[in-house]
């Protein structure tokens, strides 16, 4: 077949794909006959009622000298690891506010950090396009720095997010500005699978976040600048299981619901959304009320669910931290207006292992519990 014929075939296939996508969009719209809030309110359910003192800030973790970009809790202990523009990871005992480790990174442009399931290692990544793993028990060098245990190289763009596969110290997934996600064997440093890329169908823009299902660790979702969220099966790297449309901007954050069957997402379009993983239905849109003080719509930077899933916490670019009642889709508290709240953008947030505490990280250089 000549190049001209191939080009003609390519154009025809592209047109077919576009037509099918439009038909899918219309069909899905027809199936959206209600959302969770409408259904719940019709049953007479009212929102969770918070008093002014039900959620209070009880710790401010100070020590970073730059914006905080990411944080993660250990599954069982009260430790938090945070990553900052100052080029350091700090490990905190959140109960005592003490810093147990401060790790100076080779590349200061870090964007994400995570604890290993056993809490003995931390991993991070950023503009160096590599994921670095540090063993917290390692001997420090003369300058007091912990040496890197493993560097996972292979991505062709920045590392936006990394997560360990639950209960597996040796498997880690990264998301990247090169439009792919990668499953790594941390022990060997080898890539096990690549999700997306030029020819395997995947995201068509930078991937910004990922979340692994706790109830089915073979499944993870990724959010991207292409405005979609995609569901992947670790065993099938060739193509995404499902693509979720709805957002009108970069999807900055994704997080599985506690039951592992739904997930939430947060976007530059200022909304959070809840999707049903199995059917692909968009169950709910969580949209802010327009505020006269906002010059532009605050973007959603981070999302997390309480341990029961009744509450969703979302951080915004203007410093707000909304607590949503997920069932009735109403804001029941704004942590950004409480006494002693952050003074800048909320960049990251996460719940402790037992769900008793929420930690938020901010551009004001602090973390708060």
């Amino acid at each position, binding site marked *: 077949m000549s*190049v001209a014929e*191939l080009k003609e075939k*390519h154009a025809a*296939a592209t047109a077919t*794909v576009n037509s*099918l996508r439009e038909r*899918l969009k219309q069909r899905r719209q027809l*199936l*959206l006959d209600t*959302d*969770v809030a409408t*259904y*719940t309110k019709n*049953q007479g359910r009212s929102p*969770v009622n918070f008093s002014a003192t039900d*959620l209070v800030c009880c*710790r401010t973790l100070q*020590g970073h000298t730059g914006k905080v970009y990411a944080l993660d809790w250990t599954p*069982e*202990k*009260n*430790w938090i690891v945070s990553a900052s523009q100052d080029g350091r990871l700090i490990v905190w005992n959140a*109960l*005592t506010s*003490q*810093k147990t480790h*401060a790790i100076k990174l080779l590349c200061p*442009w870090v964007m994400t950090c995570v604890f290993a399931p056993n809490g003995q290692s931390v991993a991070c990544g950023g*503009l160096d396009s590599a994921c670095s793993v540090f063993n*917290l*028990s390692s001997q420090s060098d003369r300058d007091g720095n912990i040496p890197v245990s493993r560097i996972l190289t292979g991505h062709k763009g*920045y590392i*936006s997010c990394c997560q360990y596969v639950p209960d597996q110290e040796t498997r880690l997934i990264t998301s990247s*500005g090169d439009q792919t996600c990668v499953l790594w064997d941390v022990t060997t440093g080898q890539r096990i699978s690549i999700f997306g890329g030029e*020819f*395997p*169908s995947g995201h068509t823009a*930078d991937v*910004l976040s990922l979340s692994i299902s706790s*109830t089915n660790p073979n499944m993870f979702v990724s959010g991207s600048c292409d405005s979609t969220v995609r569901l992947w099966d670790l065993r099938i790297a060739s*193509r995404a299981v499902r693509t979720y449309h709805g957002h009108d901007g*970069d999807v*900055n954050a994704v997080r599985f619901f*506690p*039951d592992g*069957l739904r997930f939430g997402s947060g976007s530059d379009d200022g909304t959070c959304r809840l999707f049903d993983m199995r*059917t*692909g*239905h*968009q*169950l709910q849109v969580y949209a802010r009320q327009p505020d006269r003080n906002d010059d532009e719509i605050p973007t959603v930077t981070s999302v997390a669910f309480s*341990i*029961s*899933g*009744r509450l969703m916490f979302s951080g915004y*670019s203007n410093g707000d931290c909304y607590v949503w009642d997920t069932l009735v889709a109403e804001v029941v508290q704004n942590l950004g207006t409480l006494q002693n709240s952050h003074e800048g953008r909320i960049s990251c947030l996460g719940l402790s292992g*037992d*769900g*008793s505490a*929420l930690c938020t990280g901010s551009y004001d250089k602090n973390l708060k519990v």
Partner: protein
Amino acid sequence: MGTRSERAADGEAAVAEDQAPPSEPASRRAAGGGGGPGVFIGKHRLAAAIACLDQEILSLQKELTELETMEPSSASCKEWVFQFTHCSILSSLHVCVSVVNAQLCNSFKNNCRVVASTEGKPDPLLPITTGPENSSWDRWFQRVRSSRNKWWAHKASDFS
């Protein structure tokens, strides 16, 4: 500075100031040629792209077929709200899963098996929650004796 992608772009611009501009990729140089290796590379990539699009077409057609028989979103909403409501009640009555299995119908059993560990879970951040109180939730409000050691605590110490 905005989201992660904007942060990355600003960071990359700062890092790349001293770097030489990247050379033109080989595929771009070769693509426009009339014969020889350039045509082979162009045809190969085109064929691969077409194969990828064909896979995408199959996948989209499969999804369209699924949607023909899929229940509307109201069914998914109903299932989720049902799980929140009924399994919370069961949890507060301390009904164990084995009793549920023995006595209730299949669909209800499946719903509760999926969510007995989630929506029925006691939630320390809710003003009112199901299940027995867990005293460890209050550890954040107890006074903690602060160490007089330097902040880079000894590695061997147990801080948990």
